[in-house]
């Protein structure tokens, strides 16, 4: 019989993992853990449930950062006033995960540890330059989310020995906007054919900085670095956005899947999504709409 623990602090959670020597894993919402156990990916003796650790259930802003606890479910995230009003792409990405009755359990942190290349939570995290706080027996450290990937479905975080306690991302003070786009074979309850997130910061009508993250166009979420570099200092005109989208495309290596879409389709649609996301992000940053 599995043991089920409710630690009261993150440290207690890690101690419970360490004690079990690889036979315990962290569980938050459980929406991935349970199917994974059924498939035999995990066969834990002990589940360490972190959803009753008060400090992991908070969304906080301060010092230019937004910090999200590992136990915050997507439903709470998308409805949090700060996220819903200032970080649209994150709210929309959270709303893209499964369905509401899944979002009430599933967490952003869990989505990252799961490390799927198309995970909505991962793509938005990478676009936001998010960092994850990893706690283990040797202590805690912040790491860039983008650096946590070893490959599709493989994260550097080991849920049998480590706990992702928080995710944080910088929140620029003003003239900053984000947007989210997603394509799929039906409007919801589906893994995306493509997803992408963009952020744009403006200074005196020009793009001061932009980020673009895309999935599934590689083994892990892909940042469109060339496009981001190109955008710096540009006026956010439709032509510029279109060119940035083409540059983003050059960094995408999507694959064909019989059940979702071909590589060609993904290549055709990706620039559309990137351009729309960029344009909308720029508008939210304060750039007047241009056609």
């Amino acid at each position, binding site marked *: 019989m599995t043991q*089920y623990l409710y630690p009261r602090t993150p440290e207690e959670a890690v101690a419970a993992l360490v004690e079990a020597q690889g036979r315990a894993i962290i569980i938050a919402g459980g929406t991935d853990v*349970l199917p994974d156990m059924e498939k035999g990916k995990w066969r834990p003796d002990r589940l360490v449930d972190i959803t009753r650790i008060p400090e992991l259930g908070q969304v906080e802003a301060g010092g230019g950062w937004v910090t999200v606890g590992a136990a915050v479910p997507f439903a709470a995230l998308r409805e949090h006033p700060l996220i819903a009003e200032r970080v649209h792409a994150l709210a929309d990405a959270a*709303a893209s995960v*499964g369905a509401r*009755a899944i979002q009430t*359990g599933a967490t952003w942190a869990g989505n990252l540890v799961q490390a799927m290349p198309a995970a909505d939570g991962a793509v938005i995290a990478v676009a936001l330059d998010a960092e994850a706080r990893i706690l283990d027996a040797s202590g805690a450290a912040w790491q860039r989310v983008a650096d946590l990937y070893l490959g599709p479905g493989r994260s550097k975080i080991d849920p049998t020995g480590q706990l992702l306690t928080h995710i944080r991302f910088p929140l620029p003070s003003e003239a900053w906007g984000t947007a989210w786009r997603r394509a799929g074979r*039906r*409007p919801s309850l589906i893994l995306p054919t493509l997803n992408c997130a963009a952020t744009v910061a403006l200074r005196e009508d020009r793009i001061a900085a932009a980020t673009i993250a895309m999935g599934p166009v590689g083994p892990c979420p892909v940042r469109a670095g060339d496009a981001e570099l190109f955008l710096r200092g540009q006026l956010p005109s439709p032509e510029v956005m279109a060119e940035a989208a083409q540059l983003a495309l050059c960094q995408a290596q999507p694959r064909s899947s*019989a059940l979702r879409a071909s590589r060609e*389709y993904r290549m055709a649609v990706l620039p559309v999504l990137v351009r729309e996301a960029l344009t909308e992000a720029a508008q939210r940053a304060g750039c007047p709409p241009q056609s």
Partner: protein
Amino acid sequence: MRINFIVNGGSVEIDADPARPLLDVLRVDLSLTGTKQGCDHEGECGACTVLLDGQPVRSCLTPVGKAQGRRVETVEGLAGPDGLHPLQSAFIETGAVQCGYCTPGMLMAAKGLLDRTPAPTHEQVVDALDGNLCRCTGYKKIAEAVDLAARRLRGETAEISRGGEPVGGSELRSDSTPKVTGAAKYVEDMTMPDMLVGRVLRSPHHHARILSLDTQKARGLPGVVAVLTADDVPGALYFEDYSLEEPVLPQVGETVRMVGAPVALVVAETREAAYAALDAIEVGYEPLPHTFDTDEALATGAPRIAGNGNVLTRFELKRGDLTAAFDRADAIVEGEYRLAFLEHSALEREALLGYYDEAGRLTVVGGCHEPFYQQGYIAECLGLPREQVRVIMPPTGGSFGGKQDPWPFLATALMTRHVAAAGHTGTAVMLAYSRQESFAATPKRHPYVVRNRIGATRDGALTAIRVRIDANTGAYDSHGQYIPEYAVTASGGPYRWDAVDAYAQTVYTNGPKAGQYRGFGTAQACFATECALDELCEKLGADPLEFRLRSALREGEASFLGYPVAESLGFAEVLEALRPAYEAMLERSRESRAGHIGRGVGLAAMWYRFGKSGSLRVEAHAELARDGHFIIYCTAADYGQGTNTTMAQMAAEALSIGRERIEVVNADTARAPDSGIQGASRATYFVGGAVTAAARNLAIETLGMAAELLDRAPQTLRFEDERVTAPDGVSIALAEVAAEFDRVGKSRRVRGAFDLSGQFPEATRPTYAPLFVTGAHLAEVEVDLRTGETRVLRMAAAHDVGRAVNRRDAEGQIEGAVLMGVGAALMEEVLPGHTTGFADYYLPTIKSMPQIEVFLVEKAGRYGPMGVKGLGEAAMLPATPAIINAVSRAIGPAGGRRIRTAPATPERILRAVRGEAL
């Protein structure tokens, strides 16, 4: 581990592995079977939604450890001491409950919403219900129900219109209450003492020969009760009228022709033991070359699968001078249309329970269409007399044709019999498919390749149609043998043609076996014809509505089949009913054409032959019960479409009494008469006719008896509540009348028959009685020309139903079919070798629901009871071509090609936009 939590207000303490899904603990440990499981615990269906501390969660993905110290609410806790929760009554009143399998999950998702958002917007309702799949209703009435309940909960007095009379209004379903409280027992909710687990060993190969089959090791495992192979089948192995060349179980040396083909059966004491036994059966396979494609299967050098050169059956029809008719045409279109394998996806998977009843009959309880056919097949397979076999239809969570396959019944019966023969103490066997199994092994809709050529004159008169159809029956026949005739009949539609040359054949491949599916082979043929007609309209610059009216078959006129439709024909009325909606749609789509968005309106029509080929005489019984209520005995299987209610309504009208006085005993071979073949939307017309006749006969008998007792003339008497009353106020209790029947030794049970064999004598009629209904749908769509993503904004559906027995049910049937049409048009596709379940078979969720308007055209029928005609399946036909025509018209102005493949996925649509081949 001990886990304490509150369930529906009461605290419970259980001892369970905390990693077990909350769903299983609720259903098994706490016997709260109202919460359903529909997708192998994958989180893909929403049937298991419950509230945890007020938040909706998927209980299949929630380990029960999470419930520790928290509050769980399930459907069983919704109703209070004062009666139903407003959501429950609203679901019943709006007709949001059909098969009821999605209902508990929907109710809980809705409650989660209303508890925190008392006045939700439509978008919030959609967001809350999104991801809870419903295959029956099309979601419209569910959304209406939530809105109605919200208004009432806010203290508003909100009513919905309801018909008063038994027939023709919108009577509430008689069996909805247990479905909204969670009390309804579907097969998987049933338990019996010492119930054993049945499982099936299935082939992992697309095509293979069985070289050896060794069950020795499996039989010896602990907890394993029986392992059965073809050698253990006491009676017939083949049922050729159902499926040629498909054995119940394969013998060594035979081939298995699809992934999922059954190889052996296992009965065990536990699930774990059953799985262990499956693993321990040793099968030697010789893999053979395979194909999923009919062109490949027909090519020279193709792998030999079955039939004659891989052809199962053929049908051909020629009429008129084709060459001359094409010569007369001013415009001709020619096309090749392709459709995919579809899965019914009833929310309840196949689940059957076998046992011996109190009279010693081998009994199988399971959702099906024709209990008496299943009874016959089982008897043959087991070598038993029919009377020793009983089939009972339980509440069933949807079928759409999927549950017509006798195989699960045969398997369950075999297992039950062997267990009993082995003298095992276990007396009952449950065979419950996983969703994955349901995808792999149950019949699908036939993919078609249709090559057609259609001509018309400049002034819009159709001249000729030539059509060639390859219907992919997959690995096995499973009724595919009857498909070609249906395909040809549907191809011509309700139109006047000077000449027709139609040929169809069913072709074996190694895809999943195809079989009965709403519309039975007609929807695919209708799709090709209606898309081609639309192309022809474009070519001629004709208006699609006027064009169809111009060639619409009129009453009394011989169709291309060579004879007229025998029933009243309301096709022109159907088209006219759509005109205002059509004009409004055209207007809107002209107004709003923005840069990268294409808008289009599509129309498609159809005819559908209802009633099948079976006997034209159908029987039902009516009884005056000892306590004075009335009982109707009939067989019109109710898998969610509402025949239980329809039959009660029709009997109530015939007896001029309230429906609450009537009990319906339906679809139990030991209690009800055989009402013949089912399907083909036959129930209301044929069985309803017999029920009406039986009820009338019973009224005559009962009033006659009462007349003697009261000493009044029988024609002056009438039923009033529990009594029979004369105009002067004298009355007698029906229970007393019943007692008088018994006293004089007269039967209280009478027969009634509906019989068209006089109208259509065997000697002169075609194989199938010429009974057709017609209908037409409109679709308004929006296509993103850059991504191919498409939204169906609005649909309008008009159907000639003769007479709507239950208006709300008729609408519900149509709305459900419309959404199925959306799925078939844009999303759904079983890809052999890839598709496994709901995670990769994309069913429409509520987010894909268009606005749906239904027009019921009531052109009274000639022969059916009270003027009704068949409806259920017909509604499936025009939705898909209407949507595809709309998409083609939306992308046409941007240079797009016509879409000729369904589903038109975003990728296929984008290719069409770019003028590439699909």
